[in-house]
């Protein structure tokens, strides 16, 4: 794939020339972590995602008990607190 192919240009233009990322929202703070860094893929199981992130941010995996793993069409993931509606 050349550096002038449309997908490469798209990634540069989006400022995301790296692979898919996981967006973490946890205890009022946010951060983006490349899935490669977490050794995850878009199809990793929810528990795998929680384990990998817990290890990465150095907290107990039980701290992520009340979280939701979301999978987006673009390959990104989001790990966020459960929402309470109403």
């Amino acid at each position, binding site marked *: 794939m050349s550096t002038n192919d449309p997908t490469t*240009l798209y990634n*540069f233009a989006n*400022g995301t020339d790296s692979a898919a*990322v996981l967006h973490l*929202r946890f205890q009022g703070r946010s951060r983006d972590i490349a899935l490669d860094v977490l050794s995850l893929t878009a199809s990793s199981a929810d528990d795998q995602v929680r384990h990998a992130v817990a290890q990465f941010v150095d907290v107990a995996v039980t701290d992520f008990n009340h979280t939701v793993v979301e999978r987006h069409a673009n390959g990104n993931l989001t790990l*966020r*607190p459960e929402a309470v*509606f109403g």
Partner: protein
Amino acid sequence: MTRVMKEKKIAPSSIDPLALINRIASEESRALAQTFVAPVVRGKQVSVQVEGIAYTMSVKERNFEGWAVLKAVNPKNATVCGAATLDQIRKYFDLLPRFRLIMLDQFEQRLWSLQANTADARAQISGPVPLYLAQRPNRFETVCARFDGASFWYECVDRRRDPSVARALRDALHANIAPDQLRVPNAVPQEKLAYRMLWLQKFPDMRGRFSSTPQTDLQRVESALNHAGAHLEGMWNEGADQVLVRYVVDGHSHTSRIRVSDLTVVSAGICLSGLDQDFDLASLVGVMRESGYADEY
């Protein structure tokens, strides 16, 4: 229980495999004797589904490209009988969903485009897609295309889109205006993204500017929304480190108040039991999806 088991045993033996094969063979030969309409792209096979059976065939006329009436020579090869009429093409299009695409440029002898509405849930597309059999559309032009599940086929220029926007973007690119200096009224975020792509194609040395974390507040907000497949409609400064963000999730419009310094939600626009600040803009997109709530603000 016994009865059920008996039925299960009897059911397979009631199908005569030879009769089934003969029926499929006769349907196949009948179907393949007919002509069919299909788009033909040089170097690609054509796919056709007849009587519920899908065939992928090579076209004998290797240099033909366009809408063709074809006839199968055998289940793996087809020959062009002639060009399809406009009426035949229209009937073909009527079977497929329509999408709006923003034209980019030709790369490796194919025209590429971006989906104009990223919130369209009918196809899970992110990033550029090739557009086939296009009638020389201009860069940044919005066109209508039909999607057959694998490829986008050019239909026509989108007459609903103001052509002056595409023209202004082409003029700006010709004048080498950097994306962060671009001022084109009514240009939507996907058109600006297309502009950024073609500008980076023109100025490859400038790619470093975009490979790091976005700098402006607008880019940070856009990036947070794009992470989860939403897109920005508008953003208004509310003072005191707050902005009002209007955005689209799966075709539904929402408005939320955000702290601009870290994109923490100040007020989601729906009731989250006072826990709005648990979320930031990127994570709020999924919350909106989960709520199924469409803000009419």
